[in-house]
């Protein structure tokens, strides 16, 4: 039996600096017999280990292929603390440890042939990027794509070029909101929920993927429900401290859910009683 606590070696093929503190690592497992680990879905995550420093959960972003047709994993990471900053220093050829995939991803089967509404808030919401990328990669499977991104301050918006690129795609709406906007902010200033109100949603034909700070996700879900989107069609990606990712360490508990294996993506009805409770 394989030990779920034990990392596998991966090599950094490429490192792309997305913004000042966001970077993407393209990784490949060095042991081909471990390729099973690559059956990974958007919304799931891996534990990335930097030698001598530690391990952190990072959502899977995309999978591609190298020249020889070997799979390449992409992870987009924001350098915030000890481990993520040290991952930021990796160069092509460097080795890291990888465990995964873990958790429940976005409900892609359910999304097929429906509109996709991706609502994100806060800084660099990587888990949701994976689904957007996935949707564009399989564009015909989905209807309209709505993308809403909210930030506290307009200066916090990262990856502007990416949003602008998406905005130019057919059948796609991109809306931005900043709670506080500096002069020159071309988009909306105010709350994300206000933008949701403006969306021409087809409630029964839409699947919502939401990721961001919990109060924002809660307010968005409530607004969507007011707009008659069924609660079961709203999926949230949750975040808690995570040490083991195998449902043992107890840190990621959110009420009775272990975010690492019951989540991180969880349907709203399962969460709604607990979201917003202080200290849960």
């Amino acid at each position, binding site marked *: 039996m394989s030990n779920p606590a034990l990392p596998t070696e991966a090599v950094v093929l490429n490192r792309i600096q997305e913004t000042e503190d966001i970077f993407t690592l393209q990784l490949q497992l060095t042991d081909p017999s471990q390729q099973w680990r690559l059956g990974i879905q958007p919304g799931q995550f891996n534990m990335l280990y930097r030698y001598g420093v530690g391990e952190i959960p990072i959502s899977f972003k995309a999978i591609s292929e190298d020249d020889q047709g070997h799979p390449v994993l992409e992870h987009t990471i924001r350098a915030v603390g000890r481990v993520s900053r040290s991952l930021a220093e990796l160069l092509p050829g460097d080795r890291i440890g990888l465990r995964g995939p873990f958790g429940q991803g976005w409900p892609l089967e359910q999304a097929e042939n429906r509109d996709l509404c991706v609502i994100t808030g806060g800084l660099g919401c990587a888990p949701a990027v994976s689904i957007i990328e996935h949707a564009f990669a399989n564009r015909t499977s989905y209807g309209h794509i709505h993308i809403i991104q909210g930030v506290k301050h307009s200066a916090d918006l990262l990856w502007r070029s990416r949003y602008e690129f998406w905005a130019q795609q057919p059948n796609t709406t991109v809306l931005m909101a900043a709670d506080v906007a500096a002069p020159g902010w071309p988009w909306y200033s105010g709350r994300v929920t206000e933008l949701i109100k403006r969306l021409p949603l087809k409630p029964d034909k839409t699947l919502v993927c939401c990721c961001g700070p919990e109060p924002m996700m809660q307010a968005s879900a409530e607004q969507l429900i007011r707009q008659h989107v069924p609660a079961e069609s709203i999926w949230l990606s949750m975040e808690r401290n995570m040490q083991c990712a195998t449902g043992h360490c107890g840190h990621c508990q959110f009420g009775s859910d*272990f975010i690492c294996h019951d989540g991180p993506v969880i349907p709203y009805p399962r969460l709604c009683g607990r979201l917003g*409770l202080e200290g849960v």
Partner: protein
Amino acid sequence: MSAADFLPRSSLSSLIDLLQQQGYRVVGPQVIDGAILYRPLQQADQLPAGIEQIQQPGQYRLIRTQGPRLFSWANGPQALKPLTFAPRETLWRSHLQADGSLRFEEVIETTEPTAVLGVRGCDLAALSLQDQHFSGDPYYQQRRDSLLLIAVDCSHPADTCFCASTGDGPDARAGYDLALVELDDGYRIRAGSPKGQSLMDNLPLDAATPEQQQQTDEQHQKACQQQRHLPAFEPSRLIHQGQHPIWDSLAEACLSCGNCTSVCPSCFCFSESEVPELDGTTSGHQRQWDSCFSEGHSYIHGHRFRPDTKSRYRQWLTHKFGSWVEQYGRSGCTGCGRCISWCPVGIDPLEALTELGREDVE
């Protein structure tokens, strides 16, 4: 039917000898630093003869009596947890090779077969909770598989015990290989597994006398009369009772020290850390007991979900008695009373539950 099931006290050593002959390391209760601890046991005279105890909120004292019994106490600060879920262990090591590649080395230390003598019903129940939780964890499993469990039905519950009301004691109900009832002059034994049965077959047993049978029943009846009871409350509501004033008074009283979680036989939280060695080419990855009372437990970058004692206490109580039911089909509490005795300020969570339960009635 009155099968031979009685082992005179003078023959208890034959059980220990038998275990040792069969290659078990025997671990049993002993008096150390004023408490009952499970430690490696060579012979029967290391067992806590005549020791009784007083347990009160925030207080634990042993009393020496002249009595002949070896198990006339309720429990010590730890159940079986340290034997299966190590307080600190290295999970794996990574080696940086000369060519820059990394090699991961699994570190699972094999445990020799270990027979634990003197296990309580509440602790067996808690062990089965941990079995559920740690399923798929090779570190836990490896140690767990090495255990042979010899229970002793509890005849002297402490004032802090309430296993009768959780349904997990005072007698050992399931999960043991052998179970003993301690009487004035010896032990009545029953087997709970084929391994236990074969041990039993090799012991010099007599048939119990009618008096011994009667003592067994009376003793059991008496042990069931406990001071404390799990109050009535609605587990699924606990998490929604965040506005209840009880949390404020608990926060006033609580040290946030995490002792309740550390002594609880079912608590399972741990944290992981990296311990690089000085040679620069090896690094160990460790885990150690953590607690929902620690700052790191609810930390994510830039935010702590539970920054204060109030929210941490609430997490402990609502998880143990509430969410646990949803997670594992029953409450996480088996009534051992340790969290009451070993709280340095003597908080009794049952009082809080009583208060919270009252709200349900209203």
